[in-house]
């Protein structure tokens, strides 16, 4: 680097420019070689299926084979389907409730664990433990717990304090909230670990200085802790919104989208299109719609963030 600094920059003709450009890339050939496996992997397992999915969504399909080009007909069919509107609203409700119920918990738990003098490694493990249980197994477990009769475990417990047995998953008004509860239980541990790592990176001197200035515990939290972990909060927000927006496993196992389509989601509907009715075109069209909605939301979020930063 330093050797180059002294030499005068020669002027290039376009042809020379091209060769140097090529040479520059050629010089890094070993790096390219290193990237190739990853590139191939991404190409065959991510990009190619993604693009062929989008391509397929414009065709009338027979099984997974494209039959004839039909433009946006698949999209029109999917959107005008009488359950689409409810499904879309449901999906947003999942996101809403997951933010209300699940967003603060990891931050809260991480701060608590971070403050602990003893047992902190135990609690760290304990909060991550549910994440190690396979999703389907965990869902089945919850299904038994939320059994709607008087003999369901949860109903028995609330029976002790005099509350009537609830329908839980089978009550159209509660089913989404119940499902979100089970997801939160399963996934908050991983996010907690992220926040913990971030918290431990906060410079202790800041707290000390604040203490000297007489700041209380809340003041320290609002003015030091939160701003320090704010970037991670933003990141987990996006991850959570896009993750929950594609929710599929839990409603499939717990309710199959019922009762009365109250827990149906876009991805579950897309799965039904493909595997229950063999309509691959409709299925990928719905997938693309989900993708576009998420894309728009993410772009909008980044725009907002830029505004805040300025």
């Amino acid at each position: 680097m330093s050797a180059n600094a002294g030499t005068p920059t020669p002027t290039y003709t376009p042809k020379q420019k091209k060769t140097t450009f090529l040479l520059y890339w050629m010089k890094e050939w070993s790096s390219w070689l290193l990237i190739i496996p990853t590139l191939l992997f991404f190409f065959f397992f991510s990009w190619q299926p993604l693009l062929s999915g989008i391509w397929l969504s414009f065709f009338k399909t027979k099984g997974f084979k494209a039959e004839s080009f039909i433009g946006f007909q698949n999209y029109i069919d999917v959107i005008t389907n009488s359950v689409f509107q409810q499904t879309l609203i449901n999906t947003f409700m999942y996101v809403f409730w997951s933010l209300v119920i699940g967003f603060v918990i990891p931050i809260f738990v991480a701060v608590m664990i971070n403050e602990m003098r003893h047992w902190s490694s135990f609690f760290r493990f304990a909060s991550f433990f549910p994440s190690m249980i396979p999703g389907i197994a965990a869902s089945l477990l919850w299904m038994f717990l939320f059994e709607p009769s008087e003999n369901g475990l949860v109903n028995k417990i609330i029976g002790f304090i005099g509350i009537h047995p609830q329908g839980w998953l089978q009550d159209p008004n509660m089913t989404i909230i119940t499902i979100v509860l089970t997801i939160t239980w399963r996934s908050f541990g991983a996010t907690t670990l992220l926040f913990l790592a971030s918290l431990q990176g906060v410079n202790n001197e800041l707290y000390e200085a604040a203490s000297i200035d007489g700041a209380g515990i809340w003041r320290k939290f609002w003015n030091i802790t939160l701003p320090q972990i704010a970037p991670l909060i933003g990141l987990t927000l996006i991850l959570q919104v896009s993750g929950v927006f594609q929710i599929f496993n839990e409603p499939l196992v717990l309710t199959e989208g019922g009762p009365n389509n109250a827990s149906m989601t876009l991805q579950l509907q897309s799965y039904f299109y493909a595997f229950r009715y063999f309509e691959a075109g409709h299925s990928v069209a719905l997938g693309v719609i989900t993708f576009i909605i998420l894309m728009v939301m993410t772009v909008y979020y980044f725009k907002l963030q830029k505004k805040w930063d300025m």
Partner: protein
Amino acid sequence: MNLKKRNTWQLACMMLCVLALVISGCGKNSNNNVEPTATNSGGTNTATEEPAGDKPTTIKVSNWPKPNEEAQVAMYEEYLNKMKEKYPFITVDKDEWGYDVSSFLPKAASGELPTVYETFFTEADKIIKANYAADITDIMTKNEFDKSINPELLKLVQKDGKYYGIPKDGYVMGLMYNVNLFKQAGLLDDQGVPKFPKTYEELAVTAQTIKEKTGKSGFFFPTKNNQGGWMFMNIAWAYGAEFEEQVDGKWKAVFNTPEAAAALQYVKDLKWKYDVLPANNLVDVGTDLFQMFGTEQVAMSFGISDWGNAIVQNLKMPKDNLAMSALPTGPKGNATLLGGGLYMFAPDATPDQLDSAFKWLDVRGFSPQTSEEALNGLETQSKTANEQNLIVGPHGLRVWVNEERINAEQAILDKYTNVNMAMFDDYMNNGSAGLRPEVPVNAQELYKTLDVVIQAVLTNKNADPAQLLEKAAADFQKDYLDKVQ
């Protein structure tokens, strides 16, 4: 610097090796994929063993029993031995995969379907439409299946005059009874046979008695996996409802009638008036019904004769704990849904493979022939089931129309019958009254639509059946029937 350079080189070399490995791995894989469909490469079958003109062939057979299904494993091993003896040039590959909505499509799209696979009447239409079943018209005519099988059933696998599958068994929906619970409730007659309810009204009252006497649910009604709609058909037809009608070449959804509403009201009453259904409202047959029935949590359910053995085998229910009757009569008479299983064949199977697959069916005793040798496979089936203490005796709807074939089959069945047939007489004799095939257009989608309606009346005490059906019919019309060409 030097060291760094050397490291880069080493890394690059390593990566090259890895890349080479990956590529060779891919190559190997693709070879593997070809193998099952290619002609047999095994060296065991030397030319001297083979009859002239029989090319070595490999076929893959679906629904191979899993190791824990001892009875079936024994049966299939027996078939395999016979196959080796009779047709040494055919290699049979075992595939435990059985038809399943979530795995069928990936398997079919990737060309991995077994040469011969089993599926259900309900699926035939969409499989044929998606081109995932081989055209077997020639070989079916050659083997005279087309003349020996019930033409009504053959219609299910026909499209544009060609055959795409073989109906392997048929069934009519009946009522299953858990005999032990009926005994506890004092509902057995002097012969020890449950007192079968004759009307839907009686069914509800019987279920109520069970609930009062035993505390267990009287009746099971599935509500998800499209099974709710599927079962609801039986009740609705008996109440005089219809679902689809063709007017001037256009399909119309016609289940927004008072008859359909009355049938739905009946289902609603089972929950809110009689309170005889399980507390869990989101249930299906394969897991919930089998578990509940096998562990004496529920006394009655719609069902078919095959389910009995699934429960006996998987939940160790005693084989004598099952009785079956015809479905109850509704205000407009009897109605029962016709269903059944099919054999279908991989769309990329070669003529040789199809021929071998038919030979396999022949060894299993599935052929129009009535010779003793041809029925050997059937005998194996009944004999093994009997030895393994499964229910032998009751049978579903027969696919054959050939009188001789039916009698021969019945003779074998009689020989190995091991249950009190009085428990099944009503089902066997009266079960077919009011037989109805599935609706012709978008049956699965209709079931899903009805699932939703049924879930609504079971979870909401104030739901209005007529209003729900009005909306469901309008939606079904708009989403599906309007798009039928």
